[in-house]
C-alpha cells in the first residue's frame, strides 16, 4: 500500500509539473480516523497529501463532471479566441472509470479533457458496517495492520477483519481494476466475488409482492429527502433535477410519503443502464436507506434484457440509446 501511495504521489506531481493536468482529484486523509476525503490539487507540492487506501469511498467521476461543466460555463463569457481548455486528472478505481466511460459515451466531455490515473481496488470499508461492528461506539483511533483493522473506541480496542467491513458492492465487484486509464499504478488487484452478484436480488425477487412492497415502504420511510444520494451519484448530473423543476412540478416537496417514494422510484429508474454500482449513494445516505437492493435489480434487468453492463466498455453504447428488433416482448398484453 505504501508503495502505491508513493508512486501515486510521484505520478501526480509529474502530471501537475508538466502541466498535463490543471487540477487533480484524489483522496487525502480525512479528519476522522479511518476515513479519506476527496481533495483537489493544483499545486505540485500538494501532491504529497494524496493517499490511496481502503477508506477512499466516493466516486470521483462526479467531481470530474462538476469541474468540467463549471469550467465550460465560465468560458461562455470569454471571447472564443481566448477560451482555454481545462484538463482534469483523476485517481480512478474500477467503478470510477466506468462512470467516466459513461460520461464519455453520453458526450459530457472529451477524452482529452480527462487524464485517468488508474489504481487497483480491493474494496472500500463501509462506514456504516464498520460502525455496526464496533456497536456504534465512537471511533477514536484506528490503523490498518495487514488484513485487519485495529479500531480504538471509547470502550476499548477491537480487531476487525477488513473483509467483514467492506461495502456490499465491493464484495461482489466485477470491475475492481480500471477499465480505461492513461497511467496505471500498481499491480492488477485480485478479482472479488462477482458470481454472487445477484444472489441478494434473486432472494428478494422470490418474496411475495406484499413483503417486497413492505420493504420498499419501510426503506423509503427512512428517507429525509436530503438528496445526498443524488449529489454523490456520478450519473446524476442534470443541471435541473426533476425534483427541483416547478413547471411541471413532478414531485411534491412536502413530507408526503408517496412523494418520497416517487422521488426515490424515479431517481432509481433514471439509473437504467447507468448505475455502475459504486455505492456512493448508499455510503453518503445519512439514514442508511438500502438503495442498492433496488439499483442492483435494475442492473440485473439491463444485463438480462440487453446484455449490457453500464460503462463496461467504450464500444458498448448505453442500452436506452439503442434498440434491437429482437428484444423480448413478453411483457406486453395481448388479449
Amino acid at each position, binding site marked *: 500500500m505504501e508503495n502505491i501511495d508513493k508512486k501515486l504521489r510521484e505520478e501526480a506531481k509529474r502530471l501537475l509539473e508538466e502541466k498535463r493536468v490543471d487540477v487533480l482529484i484524489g483522496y487525502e486523509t480525512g479528519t476522522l480516523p479511518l476515513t479519506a476525503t476527496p481533495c483537489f490539487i493544483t499545486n505540485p507540492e500538494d501532491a504529497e497529501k494524496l493517499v490511496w487506501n481502503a477508506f477512499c469511498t466516493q466516486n470521483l467521476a462526479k467531481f470530474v463532471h462538476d469541474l468540467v461543466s463549471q469550467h465550460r460555463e465560465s468560458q461562455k463569457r470569454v471571447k472564443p479566441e481566448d477560451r482555454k481548455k481545462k484538463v482534469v486528472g483523476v485517481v480512478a478505481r474500477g467503478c470510477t472509470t466506468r462512470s467516466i466511460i459513461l460520461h464519455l459515451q453520453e458526450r459530457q466531455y472529451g477524452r482529452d479533457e480527462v487524464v485517468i490515473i488508474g489504481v487497483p481496488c480491493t474494496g472500500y470499508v463501509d462506514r456504516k458496517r464498520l460502525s455496526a461492528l464496533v456497536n456504534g461506539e465512537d471511533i477514536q483511533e484506528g490503523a490498518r495492520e495487514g488484513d485487519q483493522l485495529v479500531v480504538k473506541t471509547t470502550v476499548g480496542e477491537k480487531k476487525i477483519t477488513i473483509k467483514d467491513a467492506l461495502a456490499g458492492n465491493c464484495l461482489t465487484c466485477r470491475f475492481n481494476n480500471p477499465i480505461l486509464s492513461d497511467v496505471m499504478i500498481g499491480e492488477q488487484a485480485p478479482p472479488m466475488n462477482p458470481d454472487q452478484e445477484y444472489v441478494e436480488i434473486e432472494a428478494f425477487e422470490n418474496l411475495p409482492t406484499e413483503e417486497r412492497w413492505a420493504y420498499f415502504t419501510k426503506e423509503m420511510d427512512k428517507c429525509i429527502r436530503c438528496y445526498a444520494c443524488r449529489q454523490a451519484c456520478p450519473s446524476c448530473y442534470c443541471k435541473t433535477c*426533476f425534483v427541483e423543476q416547478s413547471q411541471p412540478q413532478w414531485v411534491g416537496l412536502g413530507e408526503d410519503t408517496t412523494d418520497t417514494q416517487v422521488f426515490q422510484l424515479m431517481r432509481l429508474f433514471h439509473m437504467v443502464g447507468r448505475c455502475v454500482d459504486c455505492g456512493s449513494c448508499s455510503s453518503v445516505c445519512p439514514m442508511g436507506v438500502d438503495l442498492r437492493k433496488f439499483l442492483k435489480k435494475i442492473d440485473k434487468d439491463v444485463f438480462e434484457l440487453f446484455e449490457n453492463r453500464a460503462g463496461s466498455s467504450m464500444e458498448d453504447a448505453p442500452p436506452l440509446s439503442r434498440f434491437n428488433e429482437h428484444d423480448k416482448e413478453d411483457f406486453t398484453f395481448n388479449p
Partner: protein
Amino acid sequence: MAENLANKEWVPKIVAIVCNWCTYAGADLAGISRIQYPPNVRIIRVPCTGRINPFYIVKALQTGADGVLVSG
C-alpha cells in the same frame, strides 16, 4: 361528490397513454365502427410512444389511477 361516489359500485379508473398515429387512430376506428368497450378509460394522446416519460406512468398511479395502459 366523494360521498355520492362512495355509494356507487367501484369502477376502475384507467389512464390510457396512446400514440397519436397508432392506438389513437385505432380508438377512433373503434368509435366509428360503434364497437362497445368499457367507458372507464381516460385517453391521453401523445405524439409517439417514445414521447412517454416513465414518469407519466408513475405520476398517474400516484395521483389515483387504478391502472395505466400504454399503447403504441
